[in-house]
């Protein structure tokens, strides 16, 4: 330690009155210190922090030429500044001073004097060994950004914001809720003065809104905080409000909204609509929409039909609006209401509770209602007509949808149809008993009236080829010719007489060409075509019809409802059997040789592949066989000089996003691309094609399409909630799906009349009410329709805002203990047991009962019990006192006395009326004749044993002042449940790197002398986030925080410890490890020197690089390795 020999250390041991001297032998420590290396002088003194104490140091430095000083006393938090100043007055650099704490963790905690003294010695030695290695440093001065961030818009946040802003400094006030005001906004009166909370709060809220120096960020949360005092960078997430500032708060939207959810501002005692304003004086006074992720029914629908939307409207009996909404996205609403395979229903959240909603049937009801009530909306007209000629080939669902969409976009497309009637598979494939012709024709007619021309008997490839269309001046072509060719089974005897193909059979029937069917008909296949064919065959006079399917019912692709209907009508279905040969007699079919199947491994379609069972062949007698195994497109029309690419499944090859074929201007979709698919999928293609063509004709890039496609939804299970207010699925009351009534069976077998009769208004509404409103707002667009200033936009997105501030005040408030936790007090079990906040809303004139204090049954209570310390002063919940309960409980008592004749009982353990005017308020309550009973309530039970008889409540307790066990009957109970930290206090703590005390509230720097600052410079706390508080205290703390903040702002700059890192150029190997590790990007690699360098202005002295540097080249001022090692060595008595 040669180098240390020539330094002179002065050591000063403080008695701190008895605090240290009582347990630490200061004289022994002093003696010990004086014998240490480099120590020139060691003294003890009663109070080193006193002026004479400091004088001692100054004198020694001057006279003895000390160049290092150690003071062993209290925590540096207390007096480091004091002693550093003393050193500087004696011209000694403050960083040559070291403080050693022999009080908090030494004299205070030790019981045996010897131990304490030993520890003190070690601490002093450590300090000495460290200080001799310390070097003089110059403090770093940084500018203070005058802007301030305040988190939390409760009374504390508001108060501080106004005080800071009034001095002309910028304030960002971030509030998580939709309005500022916090808990105070919920209160009616405030103790002890009983002035109305709103009257004193709302003026402040308004001036926040109007203040030009306050930027209010409501519905916002802090995402990230970087930097340090004077210069913080904060990311704020502004949640979408879906209503812009244009909102005039007229409230029309509320009338239009069909959704109701619990109103959290009213403590969920009443409901509110999905679009709402928290309360009339809310600031900002803009409405907002309560949304979660979109409903699955809508997400999974290939055309993005707003299902949840019209269901909600139906539930409210607003059928016309529902119809309007359906028509907005759906070109063929009647058709879909009857034959859609409704993927929406298989995703419906309700299925977790009982059964999915009958969405298809509801839609059908709405459209039928529209028809019956002649409410048909007038044909939509596009604002500007476009002249480009567009050809659509095929008038099936895809072609029609495409025509419809194009018409909406202002075009007048022409549809070419091969057959004599329009409709494609809708008319040729689907039997009339499922989709009546007049309905279908009405749909087609509607589309025609929109300006779509349909030319029938025009077959592509026969009557014309693609080239002709171009030469006739068509600019774009959409091919949607479907998949009409039935696949053969490739078994012997397929060509015998009496063997028909399902699609051809249905087509002929549907075109009114009666088909001869025998008495015993077999249908091969398991799809809708097979089932349709079977049911049609029955209607054509077949005596018995058997469906032969090679897999089981589970794999059968046909719609369940259809299969059931078929079985009702007497169709027999044989599973796990496949024909291997058609048996014939003189050229006519006389039977089918079948083989049994069993299920093997899953195939490409995911269904288990059927495999023949050896020797299970058997013959079945039939006189007609309908083959309906599968279809494929007919692509023989592809003649001319435009060869379109065809896949190996003989479907057209297109870009799935844009539906372009390999030929410019030619698009294709529907079954001709997808192979035999569904009506709704075909329609989705049609709409998409229309948009693509529109873009193509306007020479826009074929990208960012707005027409929806079916989305694959994430797997959901019972744990999933429709939305955050929804009850657990097992708590949802079971309501079975409403069934449609049907025409009689014999009628069904004779005629082609529509089988299902649809729902009645009552049935439809009942069914619609089963909807769980996934995502709360169902985007029915009604609010948009009624909003005069056009302020509503459902497509709004959350945004991230980055702000720069110098200091931060946290006023994030409190939560209250969930009273359900205390089963003894019957909250949630009995009516008329309320929490304090619920009761605040009950007594509030704007609250759920307009301030009338009544029981659930509307009667006035005869007696009310108010229970103090619910979860407070109780080790099982919160050991601390919540501090405000006694007083607001007394306030409640007063209000009850004021408004009712009820007896009031206050059950308290100790009455804490500590504030100004509080004790007087207490005595006033006593004068008013409130019964105060000293004793913690043991339990609240129902008087009378059985739940059946609506009994009053019994409060059991000891009246400790008369030493009696008492049971007091009351009608209503109010629980003063404990104040506790916000559930996410932990996240905020981490975000702002501050600490919390064991009770979970934010920890102040010093409990008495610095209650608003935190251990992190530049971050302050105020209000209940620091601990339970009443309004006066919160406001006082807020003001003091504001003063603290303003002090730095007016100072303009601030000194910070010069503890930056520096990199020793000699040792740095240039590995750059530190460059990326540095959280403040303060380290850059200098190419020319080949080493890393620290930018001192940016470095915050976090030490990350020091720890990481493999060459120990990175060191941190005042925390250099040798200093720390020396300190440790000293501690270990080295």
């Amino acid at each position, binding site marked *: 330690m040669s180098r240390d020999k020539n330094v002179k250390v002065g050591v000063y041991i403080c008695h701190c009155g008895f605090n240290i001297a009582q347990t630490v032998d200061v004289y022994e420590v002093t003696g010990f210190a004086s014998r240490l290396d480099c120590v020139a002088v060691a003294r003890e003194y009663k109070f080193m922090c006193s002026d004479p104490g400091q004088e001692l140091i100054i004198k020694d430095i001057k006279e003895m030429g000390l160049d290092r000083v150690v003071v062993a006393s209290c925590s540096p938090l207390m007096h480091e500044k004091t002693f550093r100043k003393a050193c500087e007055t004696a011209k000694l650099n403050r960083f040559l001073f070291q403080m050693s704490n022999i009080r908090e963790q030494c004299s205070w905690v030790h019981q045996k004097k010897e131990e304490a003294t030993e520890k003190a010695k070690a601490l002093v030695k450590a300090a000495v060994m460290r200080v001799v290695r310390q070097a003089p440093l110059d403090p770093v001065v940084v500018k203070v950004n005058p802007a301030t961030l305040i988190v939390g818009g409760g009374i504390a946040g508001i108060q501080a914001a106004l005080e800071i802003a009034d001095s002309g400094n910028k304030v960002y006030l971030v509030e998580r809720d939709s309005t500022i005001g916090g808990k105070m906004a919920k209160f009616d009166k405030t103790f002890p003065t009983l002035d109305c909370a709103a009257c004193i709060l709302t003026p402040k809220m308004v001036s926040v809104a109007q203040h030009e120096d306050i930027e209010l960020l409501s519905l916002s949360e802090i995402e990230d905080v970087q930097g340090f005092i004077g210069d913080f960078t904060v990311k704020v997430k502004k949640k979408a409000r879906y209503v812009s500032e244009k909102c005039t708060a007229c409230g029309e939207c509320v009338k239009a909204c069909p959704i109701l959810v619990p109103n959290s501002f009213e403590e969920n005692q009443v409901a509110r609509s999905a679009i709402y304003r928290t309360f009339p004086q809310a600031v900002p006074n803009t409405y907002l929409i309560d949304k979660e992720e979109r409903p699955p029914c809508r997400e999974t629908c290939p055309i993005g039909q707003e299902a949840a939307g019209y269901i909600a409207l139906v539930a409210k009996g607003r059928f016309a609006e529902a119809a309007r909404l359906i028509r907005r996205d759906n070109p063929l609403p009647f058709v879909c209401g009857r034959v859609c395979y409704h993927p929406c229903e298989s995703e419906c959240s309700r299925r977790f509770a009982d059964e999915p909603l009958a969405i298809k049937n509801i839609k059908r009801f709405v459209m039928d209602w529209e028809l019956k009530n002649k409410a048909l909306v007038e044909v939509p007209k596009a604002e500007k007509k476009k002249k480009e000629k567009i050809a659509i080939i095929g008038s099936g669902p895809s072609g029609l949808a495409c025509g419809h969409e194009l018409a909406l976009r202002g075009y007048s497309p022409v549809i070419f149809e091969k057959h004599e009637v329009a409709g494609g598979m809708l008319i040729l494939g689907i039997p009339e008993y499922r989709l009546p012709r007049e309905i279908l024709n009405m749909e087609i007619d509607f589309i025609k009236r929109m300006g779509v021309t349909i030319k029938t008997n025009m077959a592509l490839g026969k009557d014309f080829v693609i080239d002709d269309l171009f030469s006739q001046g068509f600019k774009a072509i959409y091919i949607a010719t479907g998949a009409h060719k039935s696949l053969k089974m490739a078994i012997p005897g397929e060509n015998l007489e009496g063997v028909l193909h399902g699609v051809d059979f249905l087509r002929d029937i549907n075109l009114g060409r009666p088909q001869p069917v025998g008495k015993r008909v077999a249908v091969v296949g398991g799809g809708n075509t097979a089932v349709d064919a079977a049911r049609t065959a029955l209607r054509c006079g077949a005596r018995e019809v058997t469906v032969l399917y090679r897999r089981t019912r589970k794999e059968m692709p046909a719609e369940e409802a259809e299969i059931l209907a078929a079985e009702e009508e007497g169709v027999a279905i044989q599973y796990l059997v496949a024909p291997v040969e058609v048996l014939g007699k003189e050229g006519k079919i006389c039977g089918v040789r079948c083989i049994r199947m069993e299920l093997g491994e899953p195939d490409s379609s995911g269904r288990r592949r059927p495999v023949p069972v050896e020797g299970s062949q058997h013959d079945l007698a039939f006189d007609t066989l309908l083959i309906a195994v599968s279809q494929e497109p007919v692509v023989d029309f592809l003649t001319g000089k435009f060869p379109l690419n065809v896949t190996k499944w003989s479907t057209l090859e297109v870009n799935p996003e844009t539906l372009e074929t390999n030929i410019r201007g030619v698009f294709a979709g529907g079954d001709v691309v997808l192979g035999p698919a569904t009506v709704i999928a075909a329609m989705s293609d049609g709409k998409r094609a229309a948009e693509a063509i529109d873009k193509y004709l306007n020479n826009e890039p074929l990208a960012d399409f707005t027409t929806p496609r079916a989305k694959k939804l994430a797997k959901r299970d019972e744990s999933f909630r429709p939305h955050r207010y929804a009850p657990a699925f097992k708590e949802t009351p079971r309501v079975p799906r409403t069934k449609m009534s049907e025409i009689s069976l014999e009628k069904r077998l004779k005629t082609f009349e529509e089988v299902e009769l649809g729902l009645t208004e009552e049935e439809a509404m009942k069914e619609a009410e089963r909807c769980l409103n996934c995502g709360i707002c169902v985007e029915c667009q009604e609010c948009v329709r009624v909003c005069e200033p056009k302020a509503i936009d459902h497509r709004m997105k959350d945004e991230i805002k980055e702000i720069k501030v110098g200091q931060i005040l946290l006023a994030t408030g409190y939560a209250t203990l969930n009273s359900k936790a205390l*089963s003894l007090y019957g909250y949630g079990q009995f009516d008329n047991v309320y929490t304090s906040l619920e009761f605040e809303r009950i007594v509030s004139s704007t609250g759920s009962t307009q301030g009338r204090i009544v029981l659930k049954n509307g009667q006035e209570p005869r007696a009310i019990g108010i229970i103090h310390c619910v979860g407070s002063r109780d080790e099982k919940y919160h050991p601390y006192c919540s501090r405000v309960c006694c007083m607001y409980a007394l306030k409640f008592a007063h209000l009850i006395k004021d408004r009712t004749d009820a007896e009031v009982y206050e059950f308290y353990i100790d009455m804490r009326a500590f504030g100004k005017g509080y004790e007087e308020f207490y005595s006033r309550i006593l004068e008013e004749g409130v019964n105060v009973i000293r004793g913690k309530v043991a339990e609240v039970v*129902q008087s009378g044993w059985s739940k059946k008889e609506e009994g009053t409540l019994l409060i059991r307790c000891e009246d400790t002042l008369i030493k009696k066990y008492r049971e007091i009957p009351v009608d209503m109970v109010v629980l003063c449940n404990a104040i506790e930290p916000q559930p996410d206090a932990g996240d905020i703590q981490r975000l702002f790197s501050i600490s919390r005390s064991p009770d979970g509230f934010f920890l102040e720097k010093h409990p008495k002398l610095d209650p608003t600052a935190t251990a992190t410079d530049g971050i302050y706390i105020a209000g209940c986030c620091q601990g339970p508080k009443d309004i006066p205290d919160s406001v006082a703390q807020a003001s003091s925080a504001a003063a603290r903040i303003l002090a730095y702002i007016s100072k303009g700059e601030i000194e910070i410890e010069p503890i930056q890192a520096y990199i020793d150029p000699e040792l740095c190997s240039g590995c750059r490890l530190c460059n990326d590790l540095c959280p403040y990007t303060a380290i850059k690699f200098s190419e020319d020197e080949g080493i890393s360098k620290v930018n001192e202005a940016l470095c915050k002295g976090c030490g990350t690089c020091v720890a990481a540097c493999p060459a120990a080249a990175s060191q941190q001022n005042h925390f250099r390795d040798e200093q720390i090692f020396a300190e440790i060595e000293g501690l270990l008595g080295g």
Partner: protein
Amino acid sequence: MSYLYYPGCSLESSAKSYDVSTRWVFQSLGKELVELEDWNCCGATMYMSTKETISLVFSARNLALAERMGGDVVAPCSSCYTILNKTNKILKENFILKAKVNQSLKREGLSYHLKVKARHPLDVLVNDVGIDAIASRATHSLEGLNIAPYYGCQIVRPEGVFDDPENPTAMDKLFEALGGNNVYFPVKVRCCGGMLMTTFPEVALKLNKEILECAVENSADCIVTTCPLCQINLDAYQKKISKKFKIKVHIPILFFTQLLALSMGSTPKEAGLGQNLVPAGEKILGGRL
């Protein structure tokens, strides 16, 4: 998997039916009960209240025996169950008492090292075997039977080892799964008075009246209990109570294992129903007489 069975004194006489039914249930669930060899009285609450070390030694001897045989002890009697648990707790937290106890146990060449867990059959059935497993074995649904599940004090208090001390639900869930209907029964953990029936009868009678009355009020067909003392108090004094308080109570009091056995297809005899003073009626037996 097998358990060490500690019947306790009452199950040898006044609560034989509890013993019989418990053994039957465990056997038919394929859970072996091996009776603790030469077990002695647990000490019971009153004894706890005379001499501390001695009382501890008493229950500790059983635990020591169990430790030697290895495994958890299943004690149907609530009192035994609590005592054993409590002994464990005290010896765990107070090494001096533990030393004293082991010093005494030496005389029989025994010693105890806190390795044994004391369990209540309800705990074992609900948490080890599992309600679903039991329900799947049930042959006679309890459909339409109104049950008042009465837990008494000592299986949930003071520690509440396997259920909530204020509102236990293990039995409720069990019988619900078996098709039974649990009536509203706010007194499910209210005390029956225990030995007060002998020492301060007037007090105990009132307590029992409250419980019985509550069950009757809520039209229960039977009260189901887990404790020999509760059972005999509720069962034996109904006449007296009816007379004293001028009310009419006549309601069978079953051990939960008795009802369980019945629903699992036991004969009334196998369920030990012969011993109930208030006979289990037709509604409970479901035509099995």
